[in-house]
C-alpha cells in the first residue's frame, strides 16, 4: 500500500469550520454559504448568484400509521398500501365505549387472547432456551441440522452470538445509527427519494419534483430491521429493501388501480405496491399466523446487511448479517447464485457493497477487516486483509477506474486505482489524504473553538466525480462529528507516475441544521449531592447517512440525513450552469 500524494490540510488552505449556530446552504464559486442566526444576507446573495436553496424535510421520530392492506401469494409476497382504508384501531375503541354486553364480550375475548399470547410466549421462550442449550452442547451446524426445523430459533442463537460480539466492540452494521432514519435511497432517474424509518420499519417516499410526501408508506411484516435500500435502475419504480428476512423487492405502479398496470398519474398519487421477498436460503412458507401477528423476525443467514444493483438493473447483489457470503440475484427471474468466498461466520459479515458505475467491479467490505474486489465477468476476486480495522463503503469514480474509502479509527482517506480494465484486477491502494483531529476557531466566531477531523466514518463521491464529502466518527477526541468535510477530486494523479498534483484538495465544511438550544447538566458534576449546573448548548445532530443525487445539472446535490430526523440538501454548483 502506498502513502503518497497526500493532500494539503484544511488549515493550510485557510479553511475553518462554521460556528455551531450556522447552517450550510450550498456551494457557489467553490465556497460554502453558511447562514447564522436568521441572517439571510448570505442566502440572498447566494440566490442572486443563481444558487438553489432546498427546504429541509423532517421525518418524525415516531409515525402513527393507519392501516395498510397487504397481500401474499405462494410465489410472491405482495402489498397494497392505501392510506384511505378504515382505521381498525378506531373501531376497537368504539366497541369498548359501547359498554354492557358488547363491552363484556370484547373484554372476554381480549382476556382470552392475552392468555393465549402469554402461553405462546412462555412456550416459545422455553423452546428457545432448550434449543440454545442444545446448541451450546454441540456445534452450531450440527444443532441446526438436528433442530433445523425451527429455523427462527436456531437463528435466534446466532443473533444472540452476533449481539454478544457487538457488545464486545465488534464493528457492526447497526452501530452508529441513531435518529429516526436508517438510510436513504435516491431514485436513479427521478426526483424521488426513499427514506427508511427506523422505529416503524417502514419506507417513506418523498417526491422532490412536487415537494411532497407520496401517499404510499411501504410496510410489511417481513420488512423488519431495515439495513439498506436501493432503487433498481432501468426498471420503473422498483425498490429493494434489505432487512432481516432478506430483500423486500417493492414494485410501485404509479397511479395504477388494483387490477391493472397502465396509468399516467403522478407518482405522488396513491398507487399499487407489490412486494416480493427474496431470501436465500429460501425461508419456509409464510404461515397464516405469521401474516396476522407482527412477530419479531430474528437474524438468520438470510438477513441482509448491504445491497447494490448493477447499473443496468439486471442483477442485485446482497451481503448478509451472519456470514460473509454474497448472493447475486436475477431480480426478474428471482433466482439466486451464492458467492461463497469470504468467511461463513458472523465475524465476516458483510458491511457494505458498492458496484462500480460501469458494472464491471463490485467491492465488498467485511467485519473481519477484509476488502474484497470482484470483477463481474467471471466473478474472480482479490482480497485485502491487512487493514487494521473495518473498511467503510467504497465510493466509485464515474469512470470506474478508482474508488475512495476509509478505515475505521483512521483519519486517512484511501484511494483504490484500477490500472487495467476488467476482468483483470491490477489494483493499487494508496493514502491520498489525512485529516488528523485538531482544534481550530470558527470562521464566523473567533471565540468559538471547534475540534475538527479525526477518524473518518464514511465518504460520498458525487456522480461527476468532482466532489468528495467525508463524515467523521465520534471518538475519544470528541471532534465535532456534525461537520462534513468537502474535497475537490482529481483522480488523474493516481494514474500518473511521479506527479505532484493532489488527488484531493480541501474545499470547505458543511454543517447541518442544529436541534436548537438545549439545557442539560454539566458534565463535570462532582457528585457531592449538589444539583448539577445546568448549561445551555446548541444541540448538534450527527449525520446518519449522506450521499449524492444521481443527477444534478448545475453540479452535485448532497443529501444528508441528520440524527434529528431532518433531511437536508446541499447543492454544490460547479458546472457553471446557473
Amino acid at each position, binding site marked *: 500500500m502506498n502513502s503518497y500524494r497526500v493532500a494539503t490540510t484544511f488549515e493550510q488552505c485557510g479553511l475553518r469550520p462554521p460556528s455551531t449556530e450556522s447552517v450550510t446552504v450550498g456551494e457557489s464559486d467553490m465556497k460554502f454559504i453558511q447562514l447564522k442566526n436568521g441572517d439571510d444576507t448570505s442566502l440572498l446573495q447566494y440566490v442572486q448568484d443563481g444558487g438553489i436553496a432546498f427546504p429541509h424535510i423532517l421525518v418524525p421520530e415516531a409515525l402513527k400509521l393507519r392501516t395498510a392492506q397487504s397481500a*401474499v*401469494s405462494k410465489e410472491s409476497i*405482495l402489498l397494497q398500501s392505501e392510506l384511505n382504508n378504515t382505521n381498525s384501531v378506531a373501531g376497537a375503541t368504539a366497541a369498548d365505549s359501547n359498554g354492557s354486553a358488547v363491552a363484556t364480550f370484547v373484554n372476554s375475548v381480549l382476556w382470552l387472547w392475552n392468555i393465549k399470547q402469554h402461553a405462546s410466549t412462555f412456550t416459545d421462550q422455553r423452546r428457545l432456551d432448550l434449543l440454545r442449550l442444545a446448541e451450546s452442547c454441540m456445534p452450531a451446524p450440527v444443532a441446526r441440522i438436528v433442530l433445523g426445523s425451527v429455523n427462527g430459533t436456531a437463528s435466534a442463537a446466532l443473533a444472540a452470538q452476533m449481539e454478544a460480539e457487538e457488545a464486545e466492540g465488534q464493528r457492526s452494521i447497526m452501530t452508529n445509527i441513531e435518529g429516526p432514519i436508517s438510510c436513504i435511497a435516491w431514485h436513479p432517474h427521478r426526483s424521488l427519494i426513499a427514506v427508511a424509518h427506523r422505529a416503524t420499519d417502514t419506507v417513506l417516499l418523498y417526491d422532490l419534483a412536487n415537494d411532497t410526501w407520496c401517499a404510499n408508506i411501504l410496510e410489511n411484516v417481513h420488512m423488519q430491521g431495515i439495513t439498506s435500500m436501493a432503487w433498481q435502475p432501468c426498471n*420503473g419504480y422498483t425498490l429493494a429493501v434489505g432487512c432481516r428476512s432478506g430483500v423486500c423487492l417493492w414494485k410501485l405502479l404509479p397511479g395504477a388501480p388494483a387490477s391493472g398496470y397502465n396509468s399516467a398519474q403522478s407518482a405522488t398519487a396513491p398507487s399499487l405496491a407489490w412486494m416480493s421477498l427474496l431470501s436465500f*436460503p429460501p425461508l419456509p412458507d409464510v404461515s397464516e399466523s405469521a401474516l*396476522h401477528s407482527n412477530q419479531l423476525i430474528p437474524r438468520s443467514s438470510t438477513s441482509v446487511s448491504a445491497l447494490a444493483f448493477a447499473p443496468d438493473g439486471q442483477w442485485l447483489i446482497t451481503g448478509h448479517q451472519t456470514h460473509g457470503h454474497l448472493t447475486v440475484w436475477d431480480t426478474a*427471474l428471482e433466482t439466486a447464485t451464492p458467492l461463497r468466498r469470504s468467511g461463513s461466520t458472523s465475524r465476516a459479515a458483510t458491511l457494505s457493497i458498492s458496484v462500480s458505475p460501469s458494472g464491471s467491479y463490485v467491492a465488498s467490505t467485511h467485519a473481519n477487516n477484509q476488502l474484497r474486489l470482484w470483477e463481474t465477468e467471471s466473478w474472480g476476486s482479490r482480497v485485502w486483509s491487512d487493514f487494521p480495522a473495518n473498511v467503510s463503503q467504497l465510493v466509485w469514480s464515474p469512470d470506474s477506474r478508482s474508488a475512495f474509502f476509509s478505515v475505521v479509527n483512521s483519519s486517512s482517506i484511501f484511494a483504490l486505482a484500477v490500472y487495467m480494465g476488467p476482468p483483470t484486477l491490477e489494483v493499487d491502494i494508496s493514502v491520498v489524504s489525512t485529516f488528523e483531529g485538531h482544534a481550530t476557531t470558527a470562521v464566523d466566531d473567533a471565540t468559538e473553538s471547534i475540534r475538527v477531523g479525526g477518524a473518518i466514518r464514511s465518504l460520498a463521491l458525487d456522480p461527476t466525480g468532482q466532489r468528495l464529502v467525508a463524515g467523521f466518527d465520534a471518538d475519544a477526541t470528541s471532534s465535532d462529528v456534525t461537520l462534513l468535510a468537502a474535497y475537490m477530486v482529481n483522480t488523474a494523479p493516481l494514474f500518473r507516475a511521479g506527479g505532484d498534483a493532489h488527488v484531493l484538495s480541501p474545499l470547505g465544511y458543511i454543517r447541518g441544521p442544529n436541534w436548537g438550544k438545549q439545557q442539560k447538566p454539566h458534565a463535570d458534576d462532582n457528585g457531592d449531592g449538589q444539583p448539577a449546573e445546568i448549561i445551555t448548548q446548541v444541540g448538534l445532530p450527527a449525520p446518519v447517512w449522506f450521499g449524492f443525487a444521481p443527477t444534478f445539472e448545475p453540479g452535485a446535490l448532497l443529501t444528508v440525513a441528520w440524527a434529528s430526523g431532518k433531511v437536508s440538501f446541499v447543492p454544490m454548483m460547479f458546472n457553471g450552469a446557473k
Partner: protein
Amino acid sequence: MAHGTVLNTGIASVNFASLGDSVLRQRTVRAMVYELALAYGIAVLANINLRHGIWCLLYAMFSSGTFLYTILAYVVGLGVLTLHSMLCYVERVPGNGGFARLQRLLRSPERTLLVMLWYMFSANIMLFAHRVVMGGSVSRMWLYPEGFYGAPQLNPAWLASGALATASGLAYAVHMMADERLQLSFPMIEQGRVYAFKDRIPESFLKVVRFARRSIAWFWPVYFVTGWMVYRGACAVIGRIMRTSSYAVGNPLLSPSAIGFWLYSGTLTVLVWELTHQLYEVITTQPTRINEMSRDSNMCLVNGLKHTGNPLVQHLAFQELYRLAMFRPAQRAELLTDIDRSSGSMWSQVSKECLAVVETARAQLAAQNADVAKPKVDAVKPKATTTALSSGNAPMGDILRRGGRPKPEEPQLQPPLPSGLIGGYNVPPKATSLDLFGPEAQGFEKYVLTKLRDMLVQSPLGTKLLARTPQASSLAVFGNFQQQVWAVRSVMRLVEASLTEDSYGVVQGDLPGILATILGYLSELERCVSQRQGPAVVRGEFVVQATERQAHAMIQVLRNVLYAFVVSFYDYLASLKLTPEVAQQLQAFVNFQA
C-alpha cells in the same frame, strides 16, 4: 479451451455444432476426472472410523476399504453422468403444482422407469458394497441359530438394507423427475467451474440431510410396523425354495448400530448422486467460447443460433451471444461492423435469430389470448360422460388428440444425439402443447395410460384435473424461457452499444422493428396476465394474489431492457421513426409510467 483464452489462430470451420461437440467431449473427460476425485472424497468420508482417534482421517485416506468404495462410487457416479447426459434437457416443462409434478412423471414413462431402475439398482449396490467394506455381522446374508446345528436363516438386516436402498432410489428418482431436476439450470453469472461447484455443495449437503431426515420420518416407522411381517413373508418364500432354520436367530432390526449404519450408508449414497448431478450441471451449463475457436467467429456464432438439431448447442450459442453482448466490447464492435457479407450483415442475422425467438413466443401467446377472449361455448355444455369421453369429445380425448406427431408402432427409446456430455443427448419433449402424456405414448405404455385415463376420467376430480386450462396453455409458451431471456437481453444490449460502437449505422434502421417486436410481446404478456390471473382473495390483513411466475418474470425482463433503451437513447428518441402505436407504448417508459 482454457477459460478466458482467446485463440488468434482458429479453425476454418464455422459449424458451431461440430466445434461444440469437441468442447463437450473435453468437458466429458474433465467430468470423469472430477468424478474420480469426488468419489475418493466420499469414500474417505465413508471410511472414517473414530476408533482410530486423531489418525482416523489419515487411516481412511489409505485404507483398502476407501479404494474399494472409491471404485464403487466412481462407477455409480459415471452411471449417473451417463444417465443424465442421455436424459437431461434444456427446455422447461413449466408448472410447479402437484399435478404438474405428476404429469412430469407420466409424460415419458420410459424415462421415468429408467431413472427409477438406475437409482434403485445403484442404491442397492452401494449399500451392499458398504456393508461388505465395513464387515461385521451386518454383512452376513445368512445367520445360523446359536446352539443348534441347523439350516441358516435370512439375515433380517439384509432385507432392511435392501428395502431402504430401494425406497431411497425410488424416492430420489421421483424427486429428480417430478421436481424437474433433469432440466438443466443455466447459471446467471459465470464463475470458474470449481467455484461454481463449491458454491453448490452446501445446498447439496442440505438436500441430502433433508433426505435422510425424511427417511427417518417416513421409512423407519413404516419399516418397524411392517418390517417383521415382511421378513417372515420373505422367509416363508425362501423356505419354499431352500431349507431354512426354524429356530429364531434374533432380531437385528432393533439394533441401533445397524440402523445408524444404514442411515449413514444411505446418506452417502444420496450424496454421491447429488454431487454428481451438480457436477454434471455445472460442467454442462458453463458458458463456452466456441465461436472464438473458428476463424470466422461471427459466422460461427450465427450458425449456432440457427442450429436446431440439438437444443443444448443452441442454448450454448445464445448464452455465448449474451456474454459477448454484455462483456466483450471488442467482439461486440466487430460484430456490429461486420457488414461485408453476401448473406447480409452479421448484426441483421443475429438480430433476426433473436427476434425470431421472441416473435414465435409472441405469436403463440397472441393466439392463446385470442382463444381466451372468445366466448366459452364449452362452459355451458353438460358434463361429459364416460361414453362421450371414449368417443373423443371429452377433455381427456381432446388432450390425446392434440398429440401432434404420428406415433410409431413399437415402443422405443429415443436415440441419443452425439453431442451430449457422455454418449449423447436426448431431445426433450416439446412444450408446444401441454399434453398429459405427450406424443411419446405408444404400445404397452399407451395401453397402461389409456387404462389410467379411463380410471381417472370416471371421477369428477379426474375430469377437473385433466381439463385443458388457459393457464396450462399459456405456460407452454415459456418452454424456452431461458433462450427468450438471452435473446431479448442480447439484442437490446447490442442496440445500446450501437450508440458508440456501430460505425456504419446498421442498427439504427432496425430499431423500429425491434421495438415493435419487444413491445408487442410485452403487450401480449400483459394481456395474458390480466386475462388469466384469478381474483385476489383477502386473507386477514393480506390479499392473496396468485401469479404466473414465467409471465411476470418475462414482463420484468422486457421492461428492464426497454427502460435501459429509453435511458440510453433519451436524446435521440424524437428522431426515431416509430409507428404511432409503438411511440405511444414507448412514451409510457419515457414517462416512467410503465
